[in-house]
């Protein structure tokens, strides 16, 4: 057989049937469920008197609507509460495992799944959430789906799909001090654009990717969707296996050895052909800061806000609109942009390593007087517990940060955590769209280190200078 890409292998091993025009039924191994995109799917099942095909493949958690303070008081917004209660009721009715709000395993769905070992190499993973691409870090084929498809997978264990094209994003070399997986992700999006990956499944390869921890790999795959690709993925290796060993849903004993033997095949073969290849040199990647209202509107921290007059005519209007929304003037150095709030968390950067990196910067320092709120929201209850065991909470609190309970929080501001109009935020999340963190709010996407440093300085700083 000719050389295959990782994507070919994952796709081929899940095709149940395929029509002449390429429309295929793909078998789904794992479906993750959260409260926002599932109620209509469960309702659809009920209306058609259908049952889920395989409840053991499903794992549910409320994350978008949960409060990050004073949990004992429950959810105050009645509409949010109904949505979470609806998830609880649906899971109970259909016999689906759910980690409820009080459970230490509760967290952002894309942090919780891998942490439980519920995402394994070679799997197909879906969730009614675009950042499902995160799970591709485990050499899984993982992507977001709409609610109709959630219902379809529940009812049939399959998805109707057509194969995408394959893109290789190869990052060679070594990342410099203070440069992270988040910066790779933003640099890639800056280079290929938010639609650059549309129609593709991206595999991240190269030395710099191999050297990333699983946390870093998840950050990178998480943002594949911001480059337009539904799926991002990384070959399995010892880093993958070490992360998974001993996790609750991972295989044990003899089955573990059998699994690892199979998982070792989950990489692109030498000579495999991609439909497109993008190459970046890690040594040239600087800490990144977005300045606009799309993740592709990004510059290096030592750069300036762009000048629409230097741009091609067709880009000019979009840039002017973004600058107006962001309240920024062309040619302003990034390090002169001062901020009002800081958000450290989300499925992009809410894992233990992110907490550690931010705490390292905050240690022995204090947030600036102009910073109204700097919040750290761990990605899950287990991340929170681990961080507390390491004393990270104390570092944050001493530095003036708020230490919260796990959830999506101000990544999309569906709960009470949000920006007011005009407020400017350094955020470790993944989207800087207009109104994403609250109507009129202004989001700058950065790594955890850069967010923590901005909180301390009150404006963006080049964290490399704090070595």
């Amino acid at each position, binding site marked *: 057989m000719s050389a295959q890409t990782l994507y070919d292998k994952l796709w081929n091993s899940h095709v149940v049937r395929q029509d002449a025009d390429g429309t295929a039924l793909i078998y789904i191994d794992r479906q993750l469920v959260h409260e926002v995109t599932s109620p209509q799917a469960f309702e659809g099942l009920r209306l058609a008197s259908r049952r889920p095909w395989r409840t053991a493949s499903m794992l549910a958690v409320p994350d978008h609507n949960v409060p990050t303070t004073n949990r004992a008081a429950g959810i105050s917004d009645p*509409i949010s509460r109904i949505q979470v209660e609806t998830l609880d009721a649906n899971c109970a009715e259909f016999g689906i495992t759910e980690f409820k709000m009080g459970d230490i395993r509760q967290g952002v769905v894309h942090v919780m799944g891998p942490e439980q070992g519920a995402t394994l190499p070679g799997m197909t993973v879906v969730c*009614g959430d675009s950042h499902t691409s995160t799970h591709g870090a485990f050499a899984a084929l993982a992507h977001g789906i709409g609610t109709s498809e959630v219902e379809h997978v529940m009812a049939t264990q399959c998805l109707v799909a057509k194969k995408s094209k394959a893109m290789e994003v190869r990052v060679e070399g070594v990342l410099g001090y203070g440069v992270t997986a988040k910066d790779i992700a933003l640099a890639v999006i800056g280079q290929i654009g938010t639609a650059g990956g549309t129609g593709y499944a991206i595999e991240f390869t190269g030395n710099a990717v191999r050297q990333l921890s699983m946390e870093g790999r998840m950050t990178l795959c998480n943002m594949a969707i911001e480059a337009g690709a539904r799926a991002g993925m990384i070959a399995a290796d010892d880093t993958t296996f070490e992360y998974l060993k001993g996790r609750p849903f991972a295989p044990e004993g003899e089955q573990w050895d059998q699994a690892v033997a199979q998982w070792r095949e989950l990489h692109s073969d030498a000579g495999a052909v991609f439909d497109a290849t993008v190459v970046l040199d890690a040594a040239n990647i600087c800490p990144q800061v977005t300045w606009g209202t799309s993740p592709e509107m990004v510059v290096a921290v030592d750069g300036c806000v762009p000048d629409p007059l230097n741009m091609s005519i067709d880009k000019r209007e979009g840039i002017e609109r973004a600058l107006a929304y962001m309240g920024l003037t062309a040619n302003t150095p990034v390090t002169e942009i001062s901020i009002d709030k800081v958000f450290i968390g989300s499925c992009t950067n809410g894992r233990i390593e992110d907490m550690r990196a931010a705490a390292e910067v905050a240690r022995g320092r204090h947030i600036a007087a102009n910073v109204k709120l700097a919040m750290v929201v761990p990605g899950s209850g287990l991340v929170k517990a681990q961080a507390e065991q390491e004393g990270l909470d104390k570092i944050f609190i001493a530095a003036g940060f708020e230490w919260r309970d796990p959830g999506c929080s101000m990544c999309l501001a569906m709960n009470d955590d949000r920006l007011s109009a005009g407020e400017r935020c350094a955020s470790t999340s993944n989207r800087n769209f207009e109104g994403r963190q609250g109507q009129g709010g202004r989001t700058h996407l950065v790594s955890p280190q850069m967010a923590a440093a901005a909180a301390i300085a009150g404006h963006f700083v080049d964290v490399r200078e704090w070595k």
Partner: protein
Amino acid sequence: MKKYTLLDGLVVPLDRANVDTDAIIPKQFLKSIKRSGFGPNAFDEWRYLDHGEPGMDNACRPLNGDFVLNQPRYQGAQILLTRENFGCGSSREHAPWALEDYGFRVIIAPSFADIFFNNCFKNGLLPIRLAADKVDALFRAVEANVGYRLTVDLEAQTITTPDGAVYPFEVDAFRRHCLLNGLDDIGLTLQHVDEIAAFETKHHAAQPWL
């Protein structure tokens, strides 16, 4: 699912690239557990001058007169003409629900985000990819002519302009078939129950940890 039939509809031009699903339906409306009633909140932050929350009486809210959907000449539009990468961002199907509930049946753009594109077909909404220069020409025509309409024939895969120009478009054969016949994907897939079950048995035998 609603069947898609031949449409002769008024066109509204939304001259922005990268319109994301947060803009199409802001997150506060995602708290609903229903799949209908999102139309009045489509493009909420652009359409109204105040901040919208679920449960408000939208008829009483102040409209943003500058926003194209609010202009009198575009009332009743069923065809949305827009720019590249429409529907990027979140996978929320609430976005096509809102557009469909507003009254749109067709969206024409040079490109769409993948998940959004997929979601449209599940909801009787036809997304059409048309080359950027053709989209440009349509923008000019719509803006120059009040009451500009297009005829979109899914069966024939053509868009016809008032002056008789015909733009053919591509659409996946399976999706076209489902849309024209209002077919429910789940019902179709369940015709293959035996194949799925056989695959599953084999798959789990090879990977017993799944």
